């Protein structure tokens, strides 16, 4: 099965096969009956529509139960512009795409305030409100009577730039648009944008820690997804020629969700196959119409159980998130990890009087410390002493009740986490928060996200400049892989690797985020002796680069040879600050660590 899968994936990914398929379809089209051509055009519209769900749900992880709304906005926009106002299709369709994209962008603001089930509800509400508006806005949309006579292939009334377009030409046109959409979505997936989408799906906190802003990323996802759905709707309008509100109600939202899920979220080829399956077969298999609801229901109920990654996951290998072209190019480059040295020397981070409360509980109580460039500070203390909370405050996840975080002479208290990371304050987590389906290399490249500053358009079109920038960062990734002894497993997905390897990968990813200050939350937990040595070496390398390092850990042996100074917390208060030798003799520290056991004994 796996061999078959990789062979199929290779075939599908081969551009010659792709070209041949498209050419064959273009050339064979004149041989097909108008009915087959029309249904084939419906398949293509469904495929584009499914890609819009794929982008929003499959990549960015945002569920939508109201996508028919975007589809309808696209359809009505071009329908009204072309039919009522006599605009050319070449203006109507782009206007539809823009309007739907804009709607998506606007919806992202309320949508970003909620998640999970609430998001499902909100998008459901969006779809319902759209449906009601279309139905009642008689003057514009024709209300319940619909909008008949939209110039379309079905009515043989479609002209584009003065050229008459029949069913055959329209199919060929839609085919080319679909191919374009698929290529762009693939480019997008294999760019910084696609990786960022996937990263916020997996963990918004982890994404924020390396400088990916969850809010803005989701806004982009909504806008792009809305635009794609709008495109599908616009093409639909000029395919059927009649728009009625019933075509844009909840069942269409559910249908596209079914297509996307069965196709396999994340898999582009799977979406296309699924669109064929769900659009072509029902029309051909008329006899089974009465089973349609039952079949849909069963598919939705059990598809995630039986085929968790859909047809795409069954037939093809999981999608990859780096463009092969960038990889080939990176292989020719050499980079040195010392290039990750902070520009203009290091910067000190100073936390002053940090206090954090949860309800009545004081988790961190008036803690002050200073992290100097090229120094390793250990933060230790019993469980629940407030170490992680302190890191969360410094990195912008919590806003402190009192106190100040200053960095390079600037007050950065309470900045959102991704801005902290952008400023150079980067952290790792107690439990490694990597993207499990990404390979080690992809995870590390994710760390370099904010170094990739080329425009989204360049990324989507895979322009040479964008590829060159990706390649340059990939060369750095290669250097860090070597430094952290991960070269051998670089192309293995993280979820197939042992815990210790994941830890190293997370530290490597943080390093690629160009930290000036790095806060490592128990990086050595669960590591073997050898792995610990490797980690210690990596931390020393970082110190040598002039990075300020905060290290939370319990292993005294691990810390002993490594750290420059130690801070001990107990019940949120700082009880010791000094060198490690002094700590061993400190009465308060001993009491904190042994006290509990002593009193309980």
């Amino acid at each position, binding site marked *: 099965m796996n061999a078959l899968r990789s062979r199929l994936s290779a075939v599908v990914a081969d551009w010659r096969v792709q070209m041949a398929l498209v050419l064959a379809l273009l050339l064979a089209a004149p041989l097909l009956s108008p009915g087959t051509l029309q249904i084939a055009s419906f398949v293509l519209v469904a495929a584009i529509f499914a890609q819009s769900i794929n982008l929003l*749900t499959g990549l960015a*992880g945002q*569920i939508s*139960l109201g996508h028919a709304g975007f589809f309808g906005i696209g359809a009505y926009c071009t329908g009204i512009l072309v039919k009522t106002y006599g605009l050319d299709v070449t203006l109507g369709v782009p206007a539809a795409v823009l309007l739907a994209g804009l709607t998506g962008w606007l919806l992202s*603001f*309320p949508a970003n*305030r*909620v*998640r*999970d*089930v*609430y*998001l*499902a*509800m*909100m998008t*459901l*509400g*969006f779809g*319902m*409100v759209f449906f*009601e*508006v279309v139905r*009642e806005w008689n003057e514009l949309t024709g209300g319940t009577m619909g909008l008949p006579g939209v110039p379309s292939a079905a009515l043989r009334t479609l002209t584009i730039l003065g050229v008459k377009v029949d069913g055959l030409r329209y199919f060929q046109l839609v085919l080319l648009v679909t191919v374009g959409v698929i290529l762009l979505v693939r480019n997008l997936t294999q760019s910084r944008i696609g990786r960022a989408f996937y990263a916020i799906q997996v963990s918004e*906190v982890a994404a924020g820690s390396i400088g990916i802003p969850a809010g803005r990323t989701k806004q982009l996802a909504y806008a792009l997804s809305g635009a794609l759905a709008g495109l599908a709707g616009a093409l639909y309008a000029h395919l059927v020629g009649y728009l009625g509100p019933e075509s844009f109600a909840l069942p269409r939202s*559910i249908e596209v*969700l079914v297509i996307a*899920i069965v196709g396999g979220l994340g898999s582009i080829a799977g979406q296309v196959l699924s669109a064929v399956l769900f659009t072509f077969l029902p029309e051909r298999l008329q006899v089974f119409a*009465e*089973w*349609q*609801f*039952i*079949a*849909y*229901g*069963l*598919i*939705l*109920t*059990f*598809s*995630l*159980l039986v085929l*968790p990654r859909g047809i795409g996951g069954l037939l093809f290998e999981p999608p990859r998130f780096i463009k092969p072209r960038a990889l080939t190019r990176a292989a020719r480059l050499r980079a040195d990890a010392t290039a990750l040295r902070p520009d203009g020397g290091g910067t000190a981070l100073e936390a002053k009087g940090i206090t954090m409360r*949860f309800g009545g509980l004081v988790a961190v109580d008036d803690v002050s410390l200073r992290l100097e460039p090229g120094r390793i500070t250990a933060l230790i203390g019993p469980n629940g002493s407030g170490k*992680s909370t302190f890191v*969360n405050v410094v990195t912008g*996840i*919590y806003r402190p009740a009192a106190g100040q975080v200053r960095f390079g002479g600037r007050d950065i208290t309470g900045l959102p986490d991704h801005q902290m990371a952008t400023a150079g304050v980067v952290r790792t987590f107690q439990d490694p928060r990597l993207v499990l389906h990404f390979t080690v290399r992809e995870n590390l490249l994710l760390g370099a996200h904010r170094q990739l500053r080329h425009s989204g358009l360049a990324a989507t079109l895979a322009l040479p400049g964008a590829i060159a920038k990706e390649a340059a960062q990939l060369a750095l990734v290669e250097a860090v892989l070597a430094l952290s002894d991960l070269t051998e497993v670089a192309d293995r997905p993280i979820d197939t690797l042992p815990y210790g390897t994941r830890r190293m990968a997370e530290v490597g990813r943080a390093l690629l985020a160009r930290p000036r200050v790095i806060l490592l939350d128990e990086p050595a937990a669960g590591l073997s002796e050898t792995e610990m040595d490797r980690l210690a070496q990596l931390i020393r390398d970082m110190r040598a680069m002039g990075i300020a390092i905060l290290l939370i850990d319990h292993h005294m042996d691990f810390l002993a040879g490594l750290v420059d100074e130690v801070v001990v917390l107990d019940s949120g208060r700082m009880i010791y600050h000094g060198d490690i030798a002094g700590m061993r003799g400190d009465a308060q520290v001993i009491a904190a660590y042994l006290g509990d056991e002593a009193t309980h004994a």
Partner: protein
Amino acid sequence: MDDFFFSLLLAGISVGAVYALIALGLNLTFWTTKTLNFGQGSLMMLCAMLTVIIFSQGLAITLAVVGSLVVVAALGMFIERWTVRPALKSSGGSMGWVVSTLGFGIFLQGMAAKYFGSQAVAFPDVVFTAQDFVTVFGQYISLQYLVVLAVAVALILAFELFIRRTVWGQAVHAVSLDPELALVQGIPVRRLILGSFMLSSVLAGVAGVLIAQIGGTVDPAFGFDLVLLGFVAAVLGGMGSSLGALAGGLLVGVISKLVGGYVSTAAEHGIAFALLMLALAVRPQGLFGRPEVSKA
């Protein structure tokens, strides 16, 4: 003028009670698993449909209702075991169970259409008839609606008491806060979850029967729209809050009726969903809910 207002208000309260009852059923599973059954409408439909069918075989109406409720309760267990549990186990956030419960609802709807026909069938009067009403201050108040209101209020009080006063209520509370911790503490988490789905389905069934007798007919698509409004009620009141369900239901009911009466009947349906989006954007935790503490 006053009569007009009071009629609308009463109707709003009446349908609001219906929404509250549905929201209450949705809340139950939210307590234990933070999930909602998106196919709840089909359970309402199925219970009402089965009642009609059993009743038409000549059995007493009470027996028909009880028999249907038993079937629906069993389905509730099935839903937990085969749609929600696997979805929760696999990673993928809420996506999994939203889709699988929705799918099971569509499946039930398809089965009902296939085997019971897709036409609306007449539903027998269970408790009162449409002609039964009492007069309060010159206003006619339908007894059928009063029953729904009474059932909703009684259940909400019962749930509040259950959660606050009983050991099992404490257990449910513990499960809702942290299921793993609850399991460690020896609480039979599995049984509680299963029970919550059974009870939630039974509530859906009760709501289905009570509403079907008001409208007088039931068809396979029955319940779907109502559950959407139940969602609105639950969200508005704050997911998981019983009092919130009541307040949310009444609010949706009264506002949509007043908008229908004073502005336009065409806007009556859309306003509920506009309200939903607004509420989610402004106060996602609802009127009576507490904001979720995001754990880093």
